[in-house]
């Protein structure tokens, strides 16, 4: 089965951002196509947000080039969003924060993320998971070409995390947008991710989640212990990932991630996005 033609949304080549005589990031190569999920991981201060700002066009590169498709619509799910109690904001009103949308569109996106019943709830009263869903609905109501999610599972418990990653994959399938995920949480990287890019001021390594988890650059950056915790979440629900990184199979047996076999099902990943550096 062939995947539909994937448009290149953003192409970053050898880009760098310089502030106060220091390079925040340099030598960034990155391509995001529609229908593709790219995950940026890296320690704090490794330039994940800076790279994301290059993608969204908020920052201009001081070196290299950033090509964004003309008229690219971005939907953004921010990292931390503390809404002051003094601001009365219902889920319904949140949907029209950056644009005008009708009732039907609002109800449709809320149904898509499964929180239709919360339409009149105040956002300050939502649980962490409900709030993240509301923020995702707000981002996709714009019918974005590119969805950017900064730490989308913060403040969400483990089973909620898994459900949110499921939802991100589902949204990608339904609206066919490209997705840029930013995460410093290394415990769960969704297997639906086509490319993981590991940053530390520059691109350390990249590839499928499995190959990055095994790469020596990743291991030296995060240590062997972090690598062990890198659980690759699968769409198959025949097992549960435990918080300590071990896996409980459907028959109740518990195995460590290393022994646990991930079977890819019919999930076309399109052309490889790996950039080989000389």
């Amino acid at each position: 089965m062939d995947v539909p033609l994937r448009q290149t949304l953003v192409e970053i080549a050898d880009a760098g951002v310089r502030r106060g005589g220091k390079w925040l990031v340099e030598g960034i190569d990155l391509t995001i196509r529609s229908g593709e999920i790219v995950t940026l991981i890296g320690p704090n201060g490794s330039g994940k947000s800076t790279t994301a700002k290059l993608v969204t066009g908020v920052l201009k590169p001081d070196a290299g080039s950033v090509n964004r498709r003309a008229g690219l619509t971005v939907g953004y799910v921010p990292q931390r969003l503390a809404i002051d109690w003094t601001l009365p904001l219902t889920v319904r009103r949140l949907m029209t924060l950056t644009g005008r949308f009708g009732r039907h569109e609002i109800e449709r996106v809320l149904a898509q993320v499964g929180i239709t019943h919360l339409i009149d709830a105040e956002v300050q009263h939502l649980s962490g998971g409900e709030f993240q869903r509301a923020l995702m609905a707000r981002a996709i109501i714009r019918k974005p070409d590119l969805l950017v999610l900064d730490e989308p599972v913060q403040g969400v418990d483990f089973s909620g995390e898994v459900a949110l990653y499921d939802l991100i994959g589902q949204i990608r399938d339904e609206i066919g947008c490209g997705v840029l995920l930013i995460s410093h949480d290394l415990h769960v990287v969704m297997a639906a991710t086509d490319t993981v890019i590991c940053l530390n001021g520059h691109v350390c390594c990249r590839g499928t989640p499995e190959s990055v988890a095994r790469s020596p650059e990743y291991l030296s950056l995060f240590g062997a212990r972090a690598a062990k915790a890198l659980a690759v979440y699968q769409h198959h629900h025949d097992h549960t990932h435990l918080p300590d990184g071990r896996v409980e199979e459907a028959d109740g047996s518990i195995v460590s991630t290393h022994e646990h076999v991930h079977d890819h099902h019919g999930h076309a990943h399109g052309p490889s996005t790996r950039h080989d550096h000389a």
Partner: protein
Amino acid sequence: MLEDFFARALVAGIGLALVTGPLGCFIVWRRMSYFGDTMAHSALLGVALSFLFQINMTLGVFLVATAVAGALLLLQRRNALSTDALLGILSHSTLAIGLVLVAFMTWIRVDLMGFLFGDILAVSAGDIALIYAGGAAILIVLVLVWRPLLAATVNAELAEAEGLRPEVTKALLMLLLASVIAIAMKIVGVLLITSLLIIPAATARRLSATPEQMALVAAGIGAVGVAGGLFGSLRYDTPSGPSIVVAAMGLFLLSLLIPSQLFVAKRRESP
């Protein structure tokens, strides 16, 4: 029959409240009340400099308030002192420099109490024209930038990523604030302007389910506060500016008695 001066005070004060209510909501939402206070305090420096250079006082106050806001934004970027401390320094030093300058200018007699607490009973027809023309302009700009300004208030990063310009809207908000301070100073005085911005907005919070509702309710509450304060000052022969603030404060306390579930959105809708 109301006396002429009293009717003028009422019209002027209500016009002002209709502007400070909606604008004040942003001050409350963005936790800028001390910022607004600092800009208001700098108005006295604006008055002094207007005398010194013999320019229009409203213009002088507007320019100084804008300059102080700009200086603050620049100092914030240097990350040397906390915003809190910077505000404290700017707030009191501009007020003090203003007072010192006024004292040096022995050739003019300045009614300091008037500038500090306002002299709403002395407003002229010209003042009223300024309040309504300036106020209308401020409200029109506010309506035009409402969506991006609100988006930037909720989350600047989000607004930026989705193609809005939060820095520009923030600068615009400063200019609107400086304008309202320039217009309001003569009415309620330097020390009481912030209260007209903040108290009606805070009162409106418990009565509103959306930001737009809150802005409208704040405007209404401010107008009621002004009317109540003025009638109170007439009845009890109290200073008018402070009476307005006391009336607004009374409305705020009353709003606390309203059960919060009455107007605000429900946690969940029954299926």
